[in-house]
């Protein structure tokens, strides 16, 4: 295998396929997205299959995740939001969590390290905010861009700034997840790559290679934390943005 830290992000096309010049091949990225969605579904259905009054280990884990996200959505968007958006937010969270965790296996592919995937997820949230916000509040949704109590003279500038601020959300939303996962995996591969490089340099090198190996193990633990935390942060920010769709003008 290559020691190139970027090698892990290369996409292979299993089934080349094109629609009107758009590459829609089934690739490694597609495979691991399907695997992530499938694993999330499998986990939730299998863990909850016993429906036991006194839950087993798997059921506790599933109920814990469900309750955790449910209370987060409720805190951020209120009773109305949790009714409307909980399935959406929980699906996003489980998908990102499972995709991140699948990516932790050596030589496997991490879909969330591709910005096109995180951008698609962030744009989905953005579109939901726009559609629900305008559908529910109509013209009142535009209040989001007009803070109250601003003198009329500076209002055009403030509105312009608010609009730019609003449209910068999907970008920062997508980049945060992508950058964390991408940087973490590059770092892991760089440190892991030092081990065979040093070990090739003879006996002293073999002894010295313990240091980057230890670092890799420590970073692995950190990456597991990041994999969970970034899924949580993505879901949390989704809630904050969705809250704006329900209650514009509450900045």
């Amino acid at each position, binding site marked *: 295998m290559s020691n190139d830290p970027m090698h892990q992000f290369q996409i292979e096309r299993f089934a080349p396929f094109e629609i009107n010049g758009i590459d829609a091949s089934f690739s490694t990225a597609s495979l691991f997205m399907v695997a992530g969605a499938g694993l999330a579904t499998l986990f939730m259905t299998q863990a909850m299959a016993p429906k036991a009054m006194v839950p087993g280990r798997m059921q506790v884990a599933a109920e814990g995740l469900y309750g955790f996200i449910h209370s*987060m959505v409720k*805190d951020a968007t209120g009773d109305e939001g949790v009714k409307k958006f909980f399935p959406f937010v929980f699906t996003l969270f489980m998908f990102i969590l499972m995709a991140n965790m699948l990516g932790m296996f050596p030589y496997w592919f991490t879909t969330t390290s591709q910005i096109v995937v995180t951008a698609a997820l962030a744009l989905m949230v953005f579109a939901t905010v726009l559609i629900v916000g305008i559908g529910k509040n109509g013209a009142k949704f535009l209040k989001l861009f007009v803070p109250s109590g601003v003198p009329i003279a500076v209002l055009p*500038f403030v509105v*312009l*700034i*608010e609009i*730019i*601020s609003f*449209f*910068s*959300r999907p*970008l*920062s939303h997508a*980049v*945060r997840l992508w*950058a*964390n996962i991408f940087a973490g995996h590059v770092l892991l591969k760089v440190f892991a790559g030092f081990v065979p490089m040093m070990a090739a340099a003879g006996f002293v090198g073999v002894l010295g290679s313990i240091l980057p190996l230890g670092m890799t193990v420590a970073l692995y633990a950190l990456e597991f934390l990041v994999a969970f*935390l970034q899924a949580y*942060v993505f879901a*949390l920010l989704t809630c*904050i943005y969705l809250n704006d769709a329900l209650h514009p003008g509450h*900045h």
Partner: protein
Amino acid sequence: MADSDPPPGGAPQDTSALRAKVEHARAAHARKHAPQEQTSAASLAMRFGGEFGSAVLVGAGAGFGVDYWLHTNPWGLVIGLAAGFAAGVVNVVRVAKSYQSANPVDPNAPSVPDDAED
């Protein structure tokens, strides 16, 4: 909290020691389970950077788009970039505000924090 008042008649020594222990554990629990977006200063810094940078990029991109369609070079880019910077600052202030309201400063904290190992 009502139950943090000492019981009438004065508490014996061991009870107050226990109470202190309970209070400490409760505070630690509350700290651990407080609604928190970020865990470390580094991730907060990453968030500030991301919010600022994305607003600048979006502002400049929007300005460039206006130039491209309306042939107003270079004013769209200039104004868009400036507005993007302003929007970035607004974003950063918003994140800082939400972080501060999620992690309020402890009013009983010592006035001089130990920053020796920072």
